[in-house]
């Protein structure tokens, strides 16, 4: 069953066009990687999905519903949850309060405070601390936990490996096994071609706002992906 279907999506920042006719599909239970260099349009694409960019045209259907003209606060109720680039936690809230913010739009499901703490036990120890007192990896865990608290159908992760030590990135990617086990589909936006394609079922490669390559992650080959990534 198709969970997300994007057709011919264009996006704009004023007069500047950032995306050109993007068509992307995510099936239920699938993990899809969106890879590309800086400025390829990956984050813009995610922002279009969650309703943070209004200047766009094309069709976005989520769970069969058309959402391209809907505001972000409405879309979030459907089960589309973003882990934003740079985490964007709320600094004046504690770790636990940040997680509870994610539960404002709670849909039925298994993700609660205790299951998030089970996934990331360190957060239970740091629950009363401000997010700024946490390491970068722990802040990413809070951002993922906050997104999971709404019990999403689709989790959108924007550059979660950026600026983190490889061992921390491994830990975060391992947590996705449990997340997928709960039936959550995932879109991974990454610059790390190798890691993202290893974790995904299917891959899309973006270059200057256009899709240059798509296919099953297993058969696509790192060389082909690297060429598409650099536009060679």
């Amino acid at each position, binding site marked *: 069953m198709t969970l997300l279907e994007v057709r011919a999506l264009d996006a704009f920042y004023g007069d500047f066009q950032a995306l050109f006719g993007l068509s992307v599909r995510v099936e239920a239970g699938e993990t899809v990687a969106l890879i590309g260099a800086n400025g390829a349009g990956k984050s813009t694409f995610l922002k279009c999905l*969650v*309703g*943070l960019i209004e200047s766009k045209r094309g069709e976005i259907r989520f769970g069969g519903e058309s959402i391209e003209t809907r*505001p*972000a*606060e*409405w879309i*979030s*109720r459907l089960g589309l*949850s*973003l882990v*934003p680039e740079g985490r*964007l936690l*709320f*600094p*004046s*809230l504690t770790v636990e*309060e940040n997680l*509870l*913010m*994610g539960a*404002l*739009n709670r849909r039925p499901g298994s993700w609660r405070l205790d299951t998030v703490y089970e996934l990331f036990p360190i957060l239970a120890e740091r629950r009363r601390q401000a997010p700024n007192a946490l390491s970068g990896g722990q802040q990413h865990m809070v951002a993922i936990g906050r997104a999971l608290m*709404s019990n999403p159908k689709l989790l959108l992760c924007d550059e979660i490996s950026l600026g983190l030590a490889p061992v921390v990135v491994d830990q975060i990617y391992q947590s996705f096994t449990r997340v997928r086990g709960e039936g959550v589909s995932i879109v991974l936006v990454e610059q790390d071609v190798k890691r993202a394609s290893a974790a995904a079922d299917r891959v899309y490669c973006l270059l200057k706002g256009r899709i240059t390559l798509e296919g099953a992650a297993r058969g696509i080959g790192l060389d082909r992906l690297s060429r598409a990534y650099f536009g060679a």
Partner: protein
Amino acid sequence: MIWIETIVNGVLYGGLYGLLGVGLALIVGVMRVVNLSHGEFIVLSAFIGVSLARVFPGIHPLFLLLPVALIAFALGFLLQSVLVNRVVTRPDPFAAILLTFGVAVVMRNLMVEVYGADPRTLPAGRLAHASVGVGGLSIGVLPILILALSVALFTALQLILRHTRFGRIVRATADNRDVVRLMGVNPGRVYNVVMGLSLALASVAGMLLAMRTAFTPYSGVERLLIAFEVVVLGGLGTFWGAMVGGIVLGIAELVGLRFDPNAGPLYAHLLFLAGVLLRPNGLFGART
């Protein structure tokens, strides 16, 4: 002894100044906007109190605080939803400042039209002159009540913001109004309630001040000046900072009156200036 009494009275007066500023601090802290019509709403609340006192002549003005606060809340909600929300998300902060300046000018002229320019007060009856003796000092009952009410309102505001779901949403919206949208929160609706709360607090301050001093439709500028000094001196967007800022200004004004009966506010303004020069982020630091 006279100086101790002056300082005690300054503290009591300053609590009211803090209340004048806390609503403004709330708006600055949550929306990063300075509401230049804050002073006019303080004065309007006092006029609404005068009107209600005329309709219900036997009722003490203290009992009119709640209905006036509810009316002010509704006015704040309307102001925000109809006007300020149109400009609050613009990157240019002057848009909201100019808009509220326009609202202030219109309100001032409307109040002159409706109520006239004569000075008014809210008669507090025997309470205005009642006093208690504490350790050889004579302290007014009304100022004590006003300080107690100010502290109670500050505490209630703090408890709401720290320990309720609504408070969590307000703090998160103040941190990042785009990210809260991803959690289903409409920042505009949060701002509506916050502006309502801000003006409800301002209305209480306006009513209490009107029981102590006369006011005219032109008093808004003076009230805004005090509120602004309180907010800046305490630290932009910090609530207890506003309370302490108010008390510091209150003491400075009354001490100044002892030196020169015509120049009390001058000493408060000079202290504000010194405070800005020495601690630009205010006594309690600025929010980042």
